[in-house]
């Protein structure tokens, strides 16, 4: 996704397979060059050897725009306005004015302060967050989202395995089966563009009748005149399985009291739906939640400051994230689901430390950034690594590899927590190799490694 270069390679199905190859019957990959679901799934799932396998679902909260680490989870003295209340508990110093709930549950947070990025541009940085790969036009079309990888690896339920809330996750399943692509909503509660209650109480019966008529009447379902038609019925069957199933519908219905408790914001609703998806225990494996707009080049501490209608100041963003995330953690704890749900909170890089810039904000920085992990076997009240006095560079890596921690390492950690072999590779339709966690282009070609120091 170097979004700036036209790439026909992005159109699936013709990715550098010569027609000769297609005609020879690149059988398993089908006309569209996608691996069928069956090829990837083992009959009975067990965690890969060597993995931690502590979690069954990952909720990935993507702080789009790159949050300022030195104002959030790697707080440096003097950065907040003078009247903000900075507290330290469990060794973690945090601004409790903007994070009232999270500052009260530092015992559940594992803060990683020795992270770095190789990118300082949003599209490339976000691409790495979504796929754990550096954007490369030659292979981007064959690089699936980490959510799709997770969906392809873990046992399925009735619920979509890869859920994307509050916005597109920036990449789909690529050459993995379309079944592992994201089910995406722009806004969470009620799947608002969907409605199956057009007929009131008789809705399901009515739908079933219509659907049965469709199956009986459509001549292409009786005999498909072309392979292009062949999958259509299969997709319809899968979709139908999801409808009218309370297991699915309930996840997206939000009670007013809950919405209020989560802050009555889009991020709050998304985290509420994520909670319900986890608690349904019905196959949700990777829930990507988009929160924007953390790209605070200006007016970081001006409450109410917006850009194009979206909140764009750190204060308000932190408060709304804090409310939803605090409620999420509390609810998952109460239902006993926190230990098997890995929550990851991070953006794509850090922001310039020290005094604010001329517009009252901070700019891009790749030499230091931070991430937070909660639940899923992770130890709370723990800090991994540290930066220098102002937060410009890593001072102490704080882990076994003794170097900065990159998104590839975090991805390896996620995979390990979920019981997935992070060293796995797959062949791609064009004849290349897709590595789950590729060598990191940090100059030292570091090998991605799970940050085992986070685990309890």
């Amino acid at each position, binding site marked *: 996704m170097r979004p*700036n270069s036209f790439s026909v390679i992005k159109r699936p199905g013709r990715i550098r397979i010569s027609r000769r190859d297609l005609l020879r019957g690149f059988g398993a990959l089908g006309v569209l060059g996608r691996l069928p679901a069956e090829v990837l799934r083992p009959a009975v799932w067990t965690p890969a050897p060597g993995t931690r396998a502590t979690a069954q679902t990952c909720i990935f909260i993507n702080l789009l725009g790159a949050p300022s680490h030195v104002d959030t989870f790697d707080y440096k003295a003097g950065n907040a306005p003078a009247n903000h209340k900075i507290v330290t508990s469990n060794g973690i110093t945090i601004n409790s004015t903007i994070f009232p709930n999270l500052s009260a549950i530092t015992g559940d947070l594992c803060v990683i302060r020795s992270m770095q990025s190789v990118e300082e*541009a949003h*599209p490339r940085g976000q691409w790495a967050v979504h796929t754990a790969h550096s954007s490369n036009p030659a292979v981007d079309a064959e690089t699936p989202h980490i959510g799709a990888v997770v969906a392809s690896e873990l046992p399925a339920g009735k619920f979509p395995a890869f859920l994307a809330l509050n916005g597109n996750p920036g990449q789909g399943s690529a050459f993995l089966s379309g079944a592992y692509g994201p089910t995406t909503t722009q806004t969470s509660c009620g799947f608002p563009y969907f409605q199956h209650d057009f007929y009131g109480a008789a809705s399901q019966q009515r739908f079933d009748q219509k659907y049965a008529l469709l199956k009986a009447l459509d001549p292409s379902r009786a005999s498909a*005149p072309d392979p292009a038609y062949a999958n259509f019925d299969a997709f319809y069957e899968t979709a139908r399985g999801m409808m009218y199933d309370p297991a699915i519908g309930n996840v997206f219905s939000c009670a007013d009291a809950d919405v209020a408790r989560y802050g009555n914001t889009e991020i709050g609703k998304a985290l509420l739906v994520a909670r319900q998806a986890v608690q349904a225990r019905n196959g949700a494996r990777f829930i990507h939640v988009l929160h924007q707009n953390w790209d605070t080049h200006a007016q970081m501490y001006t409450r109410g400051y917006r850009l194009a209608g979206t909140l764009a100041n750190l204060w308000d963003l932190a408060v709304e994230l804090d409310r939803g995330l605090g409620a999420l953690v509390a609810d998952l704890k109460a239902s006993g689901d926190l230990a098997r749900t890995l929550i990851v909170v991070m953006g794509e890089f850090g922001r310039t430390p020290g005094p604010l810039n001329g517009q009252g904000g901070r700019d891009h920085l790749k030499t230091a950034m931070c991430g937070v992990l909660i639940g899923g076997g992770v130890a709370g009240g723990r800090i991994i690594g540290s930066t220098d006095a102002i937060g410009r560079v890593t001072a102490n890596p704080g882990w076994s590899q003794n170097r900065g921690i990159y998104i590839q390492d975090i991805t390896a950690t996620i995979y390990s927590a979920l019981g997935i072999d992070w060293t796995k590779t797959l062949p791609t339709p064009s004849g290349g190799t897709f590595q789950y966690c590729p060598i990191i282009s940090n100059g030292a070609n570091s090998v991605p490694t799970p940050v085992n120091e986070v685990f309890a």
Partner: protein
Amino acid sequence: MPALTRFRHFVIRGGPTRAALLPALVAGFACQLGAQYGPTPDIACPAYPAAMRHQDELARAREQRVKNNVRRGPLDYNGSQDVNFIDTQLFSRMYRDGVTPAGPASDAEFLRRVTLDLTGHIPTAQQVLDYTASTDPNKSNALIESLLGSSQFVDYWTLWFGNTFQVTSQYYDFIGIPGRTLFYNFVRNFVASSGSYQDFVTALITGSGDTYQNGAPNYLMRGLQYSQPVQDSFDEITNRVTTHFLGVQTTCISCHDGRGHLESINLFLAGKKRVDFWQQSAFFARMNILREAVDPAGAERKGIITDAAAGGYNSVLADPNNPGPRPARTGGPYSAAYLFGGQTPQAGNWRQELARLVVNDRQFARAFVNYLWAQLYRIGIVDPPSGFDLARLDPANPPPNVPPFNGQIQPSNPALLEQLTDAFIASGYQLRPMIRLMVQARAYHLSSVYSGSQVQAEQYYAKALPRRLSAEEIYDAVTTATNTPTAMTVEGIPGTLYYAGQLPDPSEPRSSSAVLDTNNYIRDFLGGFGRGDWNLIARDNTSNPVLPLTYMNSNTVTPRTFGNTLFFGDSLVGRLAASTAGDQDAVTQIALATVGRPPTAAEMATALAYPVPAYSREQWLSDILWVYLNETEFFFSH
């Protein structure tokens, strides 16, 4: 004698390298060079017999290649049904190889297919009735002309170019709505006015001035890179130009030499170096893009594009702390040289020179007709159309007979490709004549039902290959079939739009502040069907389970199957319920409006037997319509 023996050893191996010839040369047998490489070996040369054998081999190989690739068919091929050279090339080859093509498509099938393929719309029920009933022997040509002259044609092909150039208002703050709208109108004017594609592309490459006053320079703005060295912008723009206009994606060699990377992918580029790419990119190196704020806060900026009189492509970066995504550059400053022939600029304005070189390159015409072919015949003669390997184009000059190409050239039908190229050039580089040729051909009128193998179908174009409709086409088909078009207003476009195929970029239609307004539903629907955003999310016309989940439950679809409602007014079901049409008539109307054909006997019987007596007539009609909107063939141009 010993020297001769040594030489014969090399010669008999066939195709000696120059290194192998050296001992012979050293030995003084200079005639060998002429024997091996000259047109007529010297009979007095001791190497003559071997040389003649070699010449014979070359000649036989050439003849075989010609047979394989440039055949016009056996002498007894009956071309009396051929409409134009496309038919001759395709059907004579099928005849030669014993491949039976599919039968012809029915009138209804052809009408729906060509209406979709030329305008992105389905025909109305009345159009289906009129066309199938017409006894005019020239009706298909008349239909084609009417489609070519329609405003929907302009909409559709403006969007087709739009999907390639991706000039969206949401590309950072580089384009904005003014730039986007100006560019959209620029493309639209070209399509509407039957202008020359050479002039059009020249304007895009040389676009200058204020991007909020001129449309064409927004093409270049779309190639600008955010927060990267200017060289990366030049490189990305260069890749866009070579891909869009020459069918050759060069982004690989923008980072490294072709050697060691591309030998199995693209022989032409495998022989190119990164320095060659820099010299190609240098054509843009004198371009200066000034970003000028249009609002006091500086949140919105436009571009002012000018060209310096001197300078070249530099390796030195403006900001050493921002090296950009590509490996470090060295050497230079580089002056411009055309990657595809080595030409250097003859005048100081290098972008004008580049435009001249590009639009007069035969590959420019060839790439375009191939993109067009891939659109209308679903698979390019060179596939993918952005992956031309210029070292594997010419049947008279095939690549070496070694893996992975094994002497095979790239185009599946080089004679057809060259004839299409010739036709495009002869037409004055015009769009409509080429489309007319391609859809008038009998090959375009084949059915999509075929008893042969899918392999044959694709390799020989022996049947019509179905194409899943784009997001815009599906949305427009739903609103057309149900007679429920929804008004959309788009900033900068006058009047009211009713069709997604008229939207100037995927940010439209924009919402008001209310979350669940109509425009949000439309965008959500289009996003679900893979429209993409011309930036971070690629268009995806493949299908997956989320599509029917969306479609079967969408507020955009189901309510349109109801009778008169507050929201959709004069819907098809409303009309049918209010009319005196009997059941069979009604089912027929629904089938004609949706899948563009009358119901089959089996469909009619099943529909009439549906279902529950308790339904009101309106409910019955609405269910039948819903079913037809969900039939597989509704989603395809077939």
